[in-house]
């Protein structure tokens, strides 16, 4: 069933064919018309020349996920398409657009009759050569062609092309425009449209286009980041790249360190010196930071650590997504080391979660880990600009650690036991607030102390903050009816598919509710209790083979006390959930429930 307000286009080819540029031009064009977009890219292990593919969803309505089925498959080279077979599935009623001069290797891609039904062949390379003077512009020819076939926003497209090449010579810009026009003209004159898909949409205010990693970087800057130290690692590196370019515009300092051990300790130093500090990394880097994060817990230093999760364990799948660093984020340190874990669920939420992370870190003087993942970090989404403008965020307050009063400074106790566990924090430059910070157990003054009684007292102090965090934050995301008997619990990037599946399921007549926490740890039990109390069963969907999220939830939530059946839905990462996968699970459980009535 084709839905003309929502189109998913897959494009595959080799790295050198400008697949990703084409995708970017397309999403920019769509966003400037106010459409909703969602773009994933996927590249091979090869740095240059390898295979490359993108998946663009353009919609007149808000989109939650990458979309299940590919409506239009554009192939710039069949050879490279082959490597993405598992990611760009060929659906039955797919519409194929390929280069006339690139024959498909029949034996390897046995297309069915219905898959062959709508198949446009256009001489991309030849047209590019003829009209732009170089076959390199074949990606632009392609854009022109598909915009004509499916009625994609054409004007916006040529604006986007101009913008894309704005630092190039006028000749280059012009030849690319020519390439686009050549594509359009070719379709107009040589192609007979026989497929039913004609995209329909309303023009609205332009939206921003942003990657999850960029949203994190922006969030950090919005929250008042002063100091960044990091070490490159896929798929987090864009955060550092963006920050090292733009943080200096705000008088901040960004440093590339020699490794992650150095990065975490450098930001601890900055925090000790009174600054808002952050680092970003991925799995292997987080493992290396374990010791330093524990130091932040013990020395009660506010820091924000971004983990853009990738497939693991070890080096694992550096360019693929997974949700298997959850337990490590919560429990990865030696000793009882309190830290807060927050998980963004989409690009916009990367911004919000990062702002929130700084708020909690500074207010509660503890490390906060933000668990993003490759699926969010590397995708582009359209964003409502209002959600990020300085004056508009509002929802998230900006906080800077409480400093000692003159009274406090008379006999300063850095780790004074207070009702909330939070003690006023002095730092370099504050006269009278000098103290010894340390990773060794200490008393309220900061002096090292090894007895059990003091340790018990100070441990309690450090954990007490959690009670106040649990008090301060309650809201979690709920979808679907509250009184549904079937529930889904998921976290992070799995939200997209879950939300879409839940909306669909309800539209199909099932009653299903979902909850997606943003603050993962400490565990805000109330909303969960509320959520599960009237459920018959809940599906726990996650991209962790070991079912980390399920184990975690069960550690805190007595499902069986409420008579709720837990339905594990755990899979290894590599590819994000499809809406259909979740929907099928819902249907299965729903049927079982109905049968048991």
């Amino acid at each position: 069933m084709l839905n003309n307000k929502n189109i998913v286009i897959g494009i595959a080819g080799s790295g050198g064919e400008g697949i990703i540029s084409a995708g970017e031009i397309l999403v920019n064009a769509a966003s400037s018309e106010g459409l909703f977009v969602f773009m994933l890219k996927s590249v091979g292990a090869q740095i240059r020349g390898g295979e490359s593919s993108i998946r663009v969803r353009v919609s007149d309505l808000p989109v939650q996920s990458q979309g299940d089925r590919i409506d239009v498959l554009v192939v710039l080279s069949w050879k490279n398409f082959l490597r993405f077979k598992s990611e760009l599935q060929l659906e039955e009623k797919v519409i194929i657009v390929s280069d006339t001069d690139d024959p498909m290797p029949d034996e390897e891609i046995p297309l069915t009759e219905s898959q062959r039904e709508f198949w446009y062949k256009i001489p991309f390379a030849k047209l590019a050569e003829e009209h732009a003077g170089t076959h390199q512009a074949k990606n632009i020819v392609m854009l022109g062609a598909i915009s004509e076939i499916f009625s994609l926003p054409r004007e916006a497209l040529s604006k986007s092309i101009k913008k894309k090449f704005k630092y190039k010579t006028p000749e280059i810009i012009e030849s690319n425009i020519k390439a686009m026009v050549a594509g359009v003209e070719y379709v107009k004159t040589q192609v007979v449209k026989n497929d039913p898909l004609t995209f329909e949409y309303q023009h609205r205010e332009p939206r921003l286009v942003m990657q999850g990693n960029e949203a994190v970087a922006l969030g950090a800057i919005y929250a008042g980041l002063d100091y960044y130290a990091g070490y490159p690692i896929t798929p987090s590196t864009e955060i550092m790249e963006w920050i090292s370019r733009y943080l200096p515009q705000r008088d901040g300092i960004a440093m590339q360190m020699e490794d992650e051990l150095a990065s975490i300790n450098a930001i601890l130093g900055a925090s000790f010196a009174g600054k808002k500090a952050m680092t970003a990394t991925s799995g292997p880097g987080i493992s290396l930071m374990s010791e330093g994060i524990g130091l932040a817990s013990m020395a009660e230093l506010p820091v924000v650590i971004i983990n853009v999760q990738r497939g693991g364990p070890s080096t694992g799948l550096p360019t693929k997504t997974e949700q298997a660093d959850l337990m490590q984020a919560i429990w990865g340190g030696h000793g009882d080391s309190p830290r807060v874990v927050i998980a963004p669920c989409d690009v916009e939420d990367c911004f919000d979660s990062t702002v929130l992370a700084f708020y909690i870190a500074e207010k509660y003087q503890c490390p906060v880990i933000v668990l993003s993942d490759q699926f969010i970090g590397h995708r582009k989404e359209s964003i409502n600009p209002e959600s990020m403008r300085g004056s508009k965020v509002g929802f998230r307050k900006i906080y800077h650690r409480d400093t000692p009063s003159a009274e406090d400074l008379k006999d300063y106790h850095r780790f004074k036991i207070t009702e909330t566990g939070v003690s006023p924090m002095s730092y370099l430059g504050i006269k009278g607030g000098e103290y010894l910070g340390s990773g060794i157990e200490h008393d309220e003054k900061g002096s090292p102390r090894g007895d059990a009684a003091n340790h018990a007292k100070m441990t309690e102090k450090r954990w007490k903050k959690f009670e106040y965090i649990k008090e301060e934050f309650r809201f979690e995301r709920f979808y679907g009816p509250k009184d549904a008997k079937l529930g889904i619990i998921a976290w992070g990037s799995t939200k997209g598919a879950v939300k879409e599946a839940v909306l669909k399921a309800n539209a199909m007549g099932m009653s299903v509710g979902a909850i997606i926490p943003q603050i993962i740890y400490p565990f805000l039990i109330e909303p969960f209790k509320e959520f599960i109390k009237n459920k018959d069963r809940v599906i726990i969907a996650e991209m962790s083979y070991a079912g980390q999220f399920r184990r975690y939830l069960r550690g805190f939530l007595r499902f069986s006390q409420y008579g709720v059946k837990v339905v594990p839905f755990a899979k290894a990462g590599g590819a994000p959930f499809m809406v259909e996968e979740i929907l099928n699970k819902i249907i299965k459980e729903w049927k079982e429930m109905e049968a048991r009535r």
Partner: protein
Amino acid sequence: MSEALKSTDYKSNLKPIWCPGCGNFGVLSAIYKAFEELQLQPENTAVCSGIGCSSRLPGYINAYTFNGIHGRVLPFATGVKMSHPEATVIAVGGDGDGFSIGAGHIGHAARKNIDITYIVMDNNIYGLTKGQASPTTPLGVRTKTTYYGNMGMTFNPVRMLIAYKASFVARTFAGDPKHVQKMIVEAIQHPGFSFVEILSPCVTFRGKDQFKIIRDKVTYLDGVHDIEDELKAFDIANNEEHFALGVIYKKRRPTYYEIVMDKVTAKAKAASNGIAQIDKLLEQFQP
């Protein structure tokens, strides 16, 4: 102007728990005096360390002090300094903390010329963990982990620091606190990364005679060699029979912070016409 600070003003309330006779006592008193000489303000002074007997030193100083984790004092101090460039930032530690577990950081702090002073109390042993071999424990010496004698060649820290392009490299001896004081003062005054190796005997695990053994091996540099000559400095360092004490190498070059201010922040702010506001940063995401 406020009153001059005395060396005792830099004493914290903690009492050192080093073994009686430990070389670190001499270092600590030299630090108090050096601080007095430089009239450092406690609120603008940070002294950081990792873990070890020597790394306990910051706790004995009245300033912003930090006793972090083993081997990571240099990155920590880097973060402090970059966040508070006008402060005096000092990193201290032992040979194990610095040259074993921390070995990966020294070169980077040095080549970036982070304007901190790094003081290593080198006692050729792991004191705090009660006597295992360190990278400077001499070949053949029996320690708790080298029952049959130490098996690895020793590091020559001064030589390494020169190779790393550190902009200030000195060596001194805890048995001569006045000289220690002098070296520390010069090191702190030097803009850029300054390294001071202090031969600081562990009387408990290396023997009480260490002071004498070292005293017999040291020679004082006469101050006439070309202090900017790396090759000469390397040559001086090569002598492991006699330890030359004094400033072995020193050269002024731009610090990391200076480069950042000049080459990064200035350019960045010019590019954005002053401090970029969020709304301005959002522009780049317009389609």
